[in-house]
């Protein structure tokens, strides 16, 4: 049979290869079970059951349109009203994908930073403080302190400490993105979701942002969508490869990049995807 060679090669590579994190020091903080996401009738996520380790960085990679953003936005219910999400999203033993969940409270535990920096048309201080005030933190000292620590954690404090009352819209792209991170962590989430947070930034800002994330890992569990393979390699412990709405491979980042088990993953991370 002259096809046997091809068949032979294909069986060497697996079609799907999922290794969930198993690290006693970093127990699972969030997991998806039987997750499906539909835009109208179109299924955008059909296979995406992942476990995320606490206090680690997990990278979501894959070609454009593969469903990374869709998946990420489902995790804190940002797809409510936009898409239909079925299945379970377990956060600390609770399925947060059910109607009875208080999504507003949940989103304060599972924060999100977007691709394009979106500071509010308010002062730098108020960008961070106003959500806290709305939830009853009115003590000026307490607010000052939270604003300062969040800005320090986001590595922005030194650049803006004298300009806290200036409008946030005057910040540079990289600064604005770090402000958005500060804003997100000020409400003290457990998990931080980031959707290509560095794609609008220059290399210097990007590397500062990466340092910030590595720093934040101590206190937060981070899930980040990125198109930048080097970035995923530099900062993440685990990497999930998405393709056409399915997670085809999930493993430690070093495995994904040095020894991928799925042909498409291998093509993608080596840049031969086409």
């Amino acid at each position, binding site marked *: 049979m002259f096809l046997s060679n091809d068949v032979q090669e294909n069986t060497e590579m697996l079609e799907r290869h999922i290794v969930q994190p198993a690290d006693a020091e970093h127990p699972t903080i969030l997991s998806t079970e039987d997750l499906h996401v539909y835009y109208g009738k179109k299924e955008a996520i059909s296979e995406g059951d992942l476990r995320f380790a606490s206090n680690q960085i997990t990278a979501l990679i894959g070609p454009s349109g593969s469903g990374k953003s869709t998946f990420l936005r489902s995790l804190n219910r940002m797809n409510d009203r936009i898409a239909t999400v079925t299945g379970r999203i377990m956060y600390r033993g609770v399925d947060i994908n059910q109607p009875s969940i208080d999504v507003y409270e949940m989103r304060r535990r599972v924060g999100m930073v977007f691709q394009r920096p979106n500071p509010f048309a308010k002062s730098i201080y108020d960008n961070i403080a106003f959500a806290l005030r*709305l939830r009853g933190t009115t003590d000026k000292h307490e607010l000052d302190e939270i604003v300062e620590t969040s800005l320090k954690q986001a590595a922005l404090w030194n650049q803006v400490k004298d300009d806290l009352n200036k409008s946030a819209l005057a910040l540079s792209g990289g600064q604005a993105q770090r402000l958005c991170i500060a804003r997100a962590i000020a409400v003290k989430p457990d998990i931080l979701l980031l959707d290509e947070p560095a794609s609008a930034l220059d290399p210097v800002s990007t590397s500062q942002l990466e340092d910030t994330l590595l720093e934040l890992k101590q206190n937060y569990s981070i899930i980040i969508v990125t198109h930048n393979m080097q970035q995923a390699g530099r900062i993440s412990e685990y990497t999930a490869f998405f393709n056409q709405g399915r997670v085809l491979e999930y493993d430690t980042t070093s495995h994904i990049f040095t020894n991928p088990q799925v042909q498409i993953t291998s093509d993608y991370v080596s840049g031969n995807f086409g």
Partner: protein
Amino acid sequence: MMNPKTQNKVAIGTLYGVAGLVVLILLALLGYILVSGLPQLSWHFLTAPAKAFLKGGGVGVQLYNSFYLLILAMLISFPIALGAAIYLYEYAKDNWVTTTIRTAIEILSSLPSVVVGLFGFLFFVVKLRLGFSILSGAFALTFFNLPLLTRSIEDSLRTIDTTQREGGLALGLSRWETVTRVILPAAVPSILTGVILSAGRVFGEAAALIYTAGQSAPALDFTDWNPFNISSPLNPMRPAETLAVHIWKINSEGIMPDAKAISSGSSAVLVLAILLFNFAARYLGKRLYKRLTSA
């Protein structure tokens, strides 16, 4: 065949010519109104009551009526327009209900104001027995203003990026909190500009008022602020000819000897007021925006 460069030059020349012509016509119009009107203006003219048969009447009452009607109409229409715009843009899904509402708004906003006036006459003046009154006029103006104001506020909301809304939601704010704490503050400069511009339009409106607020301006007693007295400036049930209606009336049936002069003077006042509204809109809008973005 012209070469592209000449073609470009001809095109630009034509555009400049057309634009220049428009500006010229506008300036000529404004100039004519102001040149013939400004000499008539005096403190007496702006404050004295009108006279029906004699020389030397003013437009004090009409001017006051215009502002009073404007404020009432704005007080009624702004909250409704704001609510409608927020509902339509921030909450409503695209379905047949919202399509119907949008179409209705579209049609209402292109309705000639005479028609709005006649409707106001039949409904408020006759059916609801409000008579020729400030209230009838204010309701008619609300109908005239509501569609345009709703659309202008909706456009203001549209200028605020969706990423702002997602930012609010991602912080655990409810949709209402996101709209009121994030979106509206950011949209204030542009909403304000829209409100002031629509105020200018309302201020100059005549056709919708002729049969609703009426064409007579009973003398007002500016020391009597009890809204239930007929001569009180605050009384909403009295007929109230506005400046714009006054101009129309003098020109069609004015029998005072200085009718021409009064009409010119009134026109100048009207134009000045509207210019003022426009400049205020630009200035305040820009200032507010600056304060929000740089302060």
